[in-house]
């Protein structure tokens, strides 16, 4: 009998702690598949954030470093610059990457640091129980915006892919989603490209992945996927925001 579905080698054989319907598991799997396909597990180092994916260091079989909240791109810079032949990726949520770690994000992008950033945007702080994120939508109800995010007091969501694509430093920036099979396949292609760019010494690549948080959104997993499509996608359009390689 032929095997049609198997665990990627780079993904550790341990139960993930994520909530039912959370899309972190899918993205972990995609990253691990890409590491397998490129045959780079032995020289890859992942940098885990603070947030729901804090335990990512237990979920990948490559070497892992756990960073302080928001500092993953700086830590990744240190790891990469220590051994430039290694492949270094960060895996960060929206609070980590776009709030407390904005400076590290912008400057690693600006330097064109040859790392790969996987950015999970689910418009909420998950681990601490559902507070407003920098990417929370206008009107979105969270624990700290109980009357909805109001622009007068909480301003507007930060569009990371759009913002970073204004810089000269980054090589490749794409926003994808993992709400259906087609989009998951596209996400995989983008993640693979983001790692291949690093292997080829091209520089900073970031893939923003629109993801769901059914628990803190107060929705069922299926409703959460609908909410992502209906509410997040209009604000965060999918697509390639920067690809220096397209002109090469």
């Amino acid at each position, binding site marked *: 009998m032929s095997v049609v579905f198997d665990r990627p080698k780079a993904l550790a054989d341990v139960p993930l702690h994520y909530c039912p319907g959370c899309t972190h598991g899918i993205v972990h799997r995609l990253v691990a598949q890409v590491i397998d396909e490129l045959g780079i597990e032995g020289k890859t180092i992942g940098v885990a954030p603070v947030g729901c994916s804090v335990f990512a*260091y237990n979920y*990948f079989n490559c070497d892992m470093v756990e960073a*302080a909240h928001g500092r993953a791109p700086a830590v990744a810079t240190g790891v990469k*610059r*220590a051994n430039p032949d*290694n492949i270094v990726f960060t895996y960060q949520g929206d609070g980590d990457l776009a709030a407390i770690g904005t400076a*590290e994000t912008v400057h690693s992008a600006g330097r064109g640091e040859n790392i790969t950033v996987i950015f999970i945007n689910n418009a909420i702080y998950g681990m601490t129980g559902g507070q407003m994120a920098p990417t929370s939508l206008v009107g979105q109800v969270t624990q700290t915006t109980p009357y909805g995010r109001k622009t007068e007091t909480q301003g507007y969501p930060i569009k990371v892919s759009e913002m970073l694509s204004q810089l000269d430093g980054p090589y490749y920036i794409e926003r994808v989603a993992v709400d259906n099979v087609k989009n998951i396949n596209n996400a995989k292609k983008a993640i693979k490209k983001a790692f291949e760019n690093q292997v080829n010494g091209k520089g900073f690549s970031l893939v923003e992945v629109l993801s769901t948080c059914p628990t803190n959104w107060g929705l069922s997993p299926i409703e959460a996927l609908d909410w992502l499509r209906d509410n997040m996608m209009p604000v965060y359009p999918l697509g390639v925001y920067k690809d220096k390689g397209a002109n090469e």
Partner: protein
Amino acid sequence: MEKLLMKGNEAIAEAAIRAGCLRFYGYPITPQTEVSAYMSKKMPKVGGLFMQAESEIAAINMVYGSAAAGVRAMTSSSSPGISLKAEGISYIAGADLPCVVLNIVRGGPGLGGIQPAQSDYFQATKGLAHGDFQLVVLAPSSIQECVDLTYEAFDIADQYRMPVMLIGDGMLGQMMEPVTFPEEYKGRDLPEKTWATNGTQMKRKHNVVNSLYIEPNELEKLVVERYKKYDYIKETEVKYETENIKDADVVLVAYGTIARIAKSAMQKARNEGIKVGLIRPITLWPFPEKIISETAKKAKSFLAVEMSMGQMVEDVRLAVNGQADVHFYGRTGGVIPTPDEVYNKIIEIAGGAK
């Protein structure tokens, strides 16, 4: 051996490179910017890396990354910048990583001033950041000692897998003195960095560099282990210098450049027949409490001299433990005490002790 006239900041940078530190992450701040300037010039010529980070916070986290990857890494700053690095240093301590952090101390609090100070003693030795942890803190008092202790700092960091702080003041950073560098440095026998995250090469289980332990008993066990290491360091790594303490009635305790000023005051007092001695802590942590405690059995009085409102004096008092009087003289905010000021305080104490 070649003798070079060098500024403290540059001598430390050169010593770090010679000690095999090939990753330096800096951020400009007075009065230590010469370290970065020197590194930026020299590193590319020796196959190393100087990077100017976007902040002190990023710089220390880059150090964290490079240290995790198994290479010698360093950052330097001055007081306000060290406060910003504090978070990262706590993570480095919690992840048992070796690195060297230089603090060329200036007056504080807040933006404070840019003149020499020693008001970061508490920060360096006791409360740098959250959690139970220690740094080894080395306090040179000459440019030659800056060089020697920089080599030592990297070895200590690697031997014990912990952050080491070199602490000086603006004077030490800025002044020039002749120095020599060892032609061939024989460092300590150091363990291999089998824990480094430099790629499994598919030959070993993955390494994880981490400071998060959700299970309290597991975290407690690790912290207790770390404190056993600290106890060992307290037994083996204490460094100090003494002068004239055998017959001393008044014992000065001072570190860094202030020890040199204290020494001048001591000599002036000795010339007038007052029995004054000096204990100069070289390691601020571990603090040389045993020699102070022993000396206190005979001496009448201790005088801690600092460029602060009185920080190290608390450790002197603890070490003396009621066996003698403990006095303090200090100037702060970037004001350097003169030998005469210290001398006058000695006279005051010696007079009172009669």
